[in-house]
């Protein structure tokens, strides 16, 4: 991010923080927070058990489940499902970003349409396609800059007016969707016992994608909780922390393909919604992750307050996983070098993110453990090597 983008991002964050203040002090939200913390902690302690339960429930619900141990398996499996298509559509998803689907499809000459407005803007930006915030990907871009991006990429002249830009992108995306048969989304929380996937959105785009011929849902194994009730608690809290609103416009619960039994109680498939629902359940290093790191509900609250993120932006993070917790995850998803390159040593370990985190992930403690692994693999700043030597030989760091 350049200086202007960082300034715009900080202003957006400040607005978001002010908008959240009242709701986050509400006693109902505080109660919900306690409940969700328990749900997430217990779910990650029982992750393997939840995976077994989910496998059975999805089968009962006629949802095709594909387990992917790593990103390349996930990509291969997705490609098997979409290889006949020229174009597919997707919603905002960090898990899809994690496996690098966008670049992969480009190589395979399959076009990918982002349907989330912020994501679409970032996708059309020729300079930097990384988001600023998990729920507000384009929060670092001024409306003038967005107008320029849209004008150049869509070959039209658009005024720097939010409403005009929205209408133009909407028309463009809807036109593209006419050629799409496959919708790819993530899920915000997944109920193992019910075999249900819960998705939160305000724009209505996920509803459109879920009505396509095939709906592919890419989730990490860390998204699992026990029941729909638990999952709803998680996404309600995520919404409050991410946007400062009590409830999103849409909470979709997908528990199987479209069907009817209205004629003589005989099951007929393929009514209005998806004919086929496929879940890609991704490990990609999560099983070996520090469990506390997996409590995350994806609200982005940690980066809004982070003193480092506020001055460097998404340089401090890995793909869509932004800030310190994202850097920590990158070591499990990839390796020591990746965590080093994602800004492992940019963190001041101040601990403010833990205070701001609805489930209280102690990222600074996790960072210290991750740093240890990284230095053992030879990835640490030269300056730190010198300090270590000074302490050994002179008894002081300088």
């Amino acid at each position, binding site marked *: 991010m350049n200086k202007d983008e960082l300034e715009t991002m900080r202003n957006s964050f400040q607005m978001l923080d002010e908008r959240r203040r009242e709701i986050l002090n509400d006693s109902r939200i505080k109660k919900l927070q306690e409940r969700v913390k328990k749900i997430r902690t217990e779910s990650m302690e029982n992750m393997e058990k939840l995976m077994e339960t989910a496998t059975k429930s999805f089968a009962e619900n006629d949802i095709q489940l594909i387990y992917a141990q790593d990103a390349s398996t996930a990509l291969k499996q997705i490609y098997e499902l979409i290889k006949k298509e020229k174009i597919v559509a997707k919603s905002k998803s960090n898990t899809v970003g994690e496996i690098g689907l966008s670049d992969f499809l480009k190589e395979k000459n399959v076009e990918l349409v982002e349907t989330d407005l912020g994501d679409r803007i970032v996708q059309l930006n020729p300079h930097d396609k990384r988001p600023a915030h998990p729920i507000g990907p384009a929060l670092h871009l001024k409306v003038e800059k967005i107008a320029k991006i849209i004008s150049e990429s869509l070959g039209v002249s658009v005024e720097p007016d939010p409403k005009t830009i929205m209408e133009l992108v909407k028309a463009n995306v809807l036109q593209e969707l006419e050629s799409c048969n496959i919708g790819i989304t993530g899920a915000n929380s997944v109920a193992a016992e019910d075999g249900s996937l819960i998705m939160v959105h305000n724009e209505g785009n996920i509803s459109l994608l879920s009505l396509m011929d095939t709906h592919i849902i890419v989730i990490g194994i860390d998204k699992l909780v026990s029941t729909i009730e638990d999952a709803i608690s998680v996404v309600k809290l995520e919404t409050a922390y991410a946007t400062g609103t009590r409830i999103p416009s849409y909470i979709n619960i997908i528990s199987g393909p479209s069907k009817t039994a209205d004629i003589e109680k005989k099951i007929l498939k393929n009514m209005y919604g998806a004919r086929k629902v496929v879940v890609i359940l991704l490990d990609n290093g999560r099983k070996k992750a520090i469990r506390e790191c997996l409590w995350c509900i994806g609200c982005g609250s940690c980066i809004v*307050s982070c*003193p*480092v993120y*506020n*001055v*460097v932006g998404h340089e401090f993070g890995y793909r869509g996983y932004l800030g310190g917790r994202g850097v920590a995850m990158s070591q499990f998803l990839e390796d020591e070098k990746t965590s080093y390159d994602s800004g492992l*040593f*940019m*963190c*001041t*370990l*101040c*601990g*403010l993110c*833990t*205070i701001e985190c609805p489930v209280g992930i102690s990222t*600074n403690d996790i*960072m*210290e453990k*991750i*740093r*240890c*692994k*990284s*230095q053992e693999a030879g990835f*640490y*700043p030269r*300056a*730190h090597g010198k*300090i*270590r030597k000074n*302490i*050994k030989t002179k*008894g*002081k*760091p*300088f």
Partner: protein
Amino acid sequence: MNTNKMIYFKGCVAREKLKNIADATENILKEAGINYQIIEDEPCCGSVLLRTGFVDDALEQMQKTAQLLNGDTILVSCAGCYRTLKKDYKELLDVDLDVIHTSQLFSELIEEKKIIIKPSHQKITYHDPCHLGRHCGEYEASRKVLESLGQLMEMEHNRDKALCCGSGGGVKSAHPEISDSIALNRLKEVDKSGADILSTSCPFCKLNLAENGSVEVLDLSELVLRCIKHE
């Protein structure tokens, strides 16, 4: 607190870079009539090694340091030393050290009238060091001291929501430009607070904030010494 057998552990920054903090602290100890010792060739507490991922080196260092310190009351100027000696020695070595931070000692000395303060109208704001505040839950000792010295003007983000000074976690050595930018954001809040003096209770914080701004930055010890009333 066993003040008969107190070691004043200066810590590397107050010992090597900001000697004024160590001098001010010693002067206050003398003024209050406290017997204390200084360790010749004071060792490293191990904090810097722990935070930067050199755990094996840290443990080796901490074991040596623990042998020197165990059994005495240890007075520290540095928030980093405080967190490490109090929390990490317990968690990693199972050594329960008797550690006290200068802010806690000064607060007691003022309350017990072992030092007499001449209050003034000076406007002071306080920067919570992460290692003292969020990491150890000590927010009030420094504030109590400052309220007896002058008028405490809080910054927008204070106590558990305080913003970092930018120098923690080895960032100042590995990414000095990030450290500077973070300090500048914190100093904006100092400006807005309306205070004339910025006080803190960690030499690392003082170093980074003083380097990046023009406001007078004083460690709590320096400010206390300035306000002691001599009978």
